[in-house]
């Protein structure tokens, strides 16, 4: 069920991108999409009543079935990339605001769509 939820999150992100003109809202919807995909990635590795892939005194490699560690590694990278893009996006948004005085792309587009 978690997979359906994550994909719906992705859809909400898409809806956000389609409907808004405001740049900050766009960056937020991108984050929602990233979030959706990340959850989906983790859900791919989910194993029913699996154990976190960390060896402890009670748990060693052959005893129990672990949750798939690879998606978790990938999701970590994907989160960090999402962070990078959001940081950059907000920086562009600030510069946009400083230059045009508004976050609304429609208004900027109208001014001089060079």
């Amino acid at each position: 069920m978690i997979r359906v939820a994550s994909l719906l999150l992705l859809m909400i992100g898409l809806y956000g991108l389609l409907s808004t003109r405001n740049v900050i809202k766009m960056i937020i919807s991108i984050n929602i999409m990233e979030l959706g995909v990340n959850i989906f990635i983790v859900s791919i590795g989910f194993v029913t009543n699996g154990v976190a892939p960390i060896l402890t005194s009670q748990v060693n490699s052959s005893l129990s079935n672990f949750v798939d560690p690879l998606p978790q590694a990938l999701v970590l990278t994907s989160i960090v990339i999402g962070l990078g893009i959001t940081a950059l996006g907000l920086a562009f948004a600030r510069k946009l605001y400083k230059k045009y005085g508004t976050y609304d792309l429609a208004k900027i587009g109208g001014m001089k769509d060079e």
Partner: protein
Amino acid sequence: MTLITVLITLLTLAAVTYLLSLVNSKLGAYFTIVTSLATIVMLFLIKDSIGQSYSLSFFTFKLTTVGWYFSMVMVTVYFTTAFLNPFWIKKMIYPAAYNLFFLVSLIGTIGMFFARDFITLFICWETVVWTSTFIIQMGKSRKSSYVYYVVSAIGSMVTLFAMMLVYQVSGTLEISTAFSALSGQPVLALIVFFTFILAGLSKIGIFPFHVWLPMAHGSAPHTFSPVLSGGLVKMGAFIAYLSVTAFAAYEVFANTFTIMGIPAPLYIIMVLGAISIVVGTVMAIRQDDAKKLLAYSSVANGGYILIGILLYDQIAFAGGMLHLISHALASATAFITIAIVAYRTGTTKMSELGGMIHRMPVTYTVYLIAIISMAGIPPMGGFVSKWLILQGLADRGLLFLAAAAFFGSIGSFMYVFRPLSAVFLGQLAPKYEKIKEANIMMQIPMYLLTIATLLVGVFPNVVLRVIADIQLEAGIQEIVLVGNTIVVSNGVLDALRVFIVFGYGFLIALVIFILRRKSRRVTLMDTYTSAEFIHTPELLHYSSNFYAPFERLTKKPYPVLNLYEKVSIKIKEIGHMAESLFSSSKPAITIFWIIIVFAIFFLGGVL
């Protein structure tokens, strides 16, 4: 002295000319004359090694008589026009580039005529196209060189498609053997025929593709128009020759239905040729600019050449080939004379000129002989080739083509006479009082061309013997030449005897004229004006809208150029639609398109 050494020496000479003209452009221009002369000499040297084939990296060449004949026609035009270069080079914006492109286009044409495989043919063809595009732009208008490039690009791209198709079917790129694979499939043969010949049609300037001719010839630099209309038009004839010989040699159209005894596809192209004769003549009659008029005359004569070559039999084919050289000489001379008039007076508009004969008698006589040949009047070369074509048509009973041919030849009297009377005869405007005759350097080409036209006219058998060899090479029955007479199934012509009798008649008239009393010399202004005294020469010179009644008849014909403009506007609209649809500054639209693409592809994939 192999063909390869000829081409290489020419390329080195072209490079030397380029370097020379960087130093001093006039010197470079003179060097173009030397190079084209060298080409003629070399062509004669390699005449005896016809039949051999050579190769140079991925170019392969084969020396054929027809290639030699076409190159001779081309080089004579280049050589005689080169004499004009030194006088115009100062006006060019890029003189060095002009000299280089002038020679490179010459080399390109020679390479093309001796090409053995499709790729060499195509490469030389394109080199000539883009070099001449950059020369034409040095003339009056950029639009005309743009239209010139587009129309030839249409032709060459479609021909490239045909070449690749044939290469795919036959497995070999060699022109002479590649078409053999087509004898099997009739449908494929049709496609290949119409696509392959398209480049030829676009270059000769046949009806739907004649749009660039008046623009390019009209506005090209004066010293390149003769080459354009005299020479480069003949490249198209070469492609027509290639396609006809190949298709006939392998009886590709053996079982396609025939119209009036001619395979249907050939007949369709010939009808196009006939239409272009009529269109060329009607449009030529209406022109005010002398160069545009001569350009339309090239369209009309291109039609004759195409019909001649496509008939591909003993008589008309020889007529077509002979018309090639007679038209080349005549139109080159005409353009050179008009160029000299423009050099002296600065304009080629007939309404602004008049009475040049009083200041430039030599140019006048040369022009007179040129137009006699262009109109196809007996003592000159034009008549012999038109006579052959008409006899050929009569022999095969092609009524409609003949009708167009008659209209073309009679019509040519009209449009040929118009520049004669408007530019040379009639009143001399005071502002042209002090212009001088063309200087010696310019007169040399005129004399050469006139003598050549006379020779072709009076002793046609000299050229016809070469054409007979071509007919043998092409595998058709060669024309019968007895001494100086041409014997055809339905007629005999002895051009020399016609000339002698014409001289005899002229002698009698001269004698009568001299016996009578000497007449009093009177100025041109002293004319019978039924009591209405006009003192300004311009008013007394009738040169604008010369054939008003005829022009009223053929009300403004639909300019074919609009067709091309409509297409380009359509392309621009689609481009604009694509641009506004797909790349707008708002990201939402692109994301919308991503979703649409995903949905379509998924549904497409699943169903």
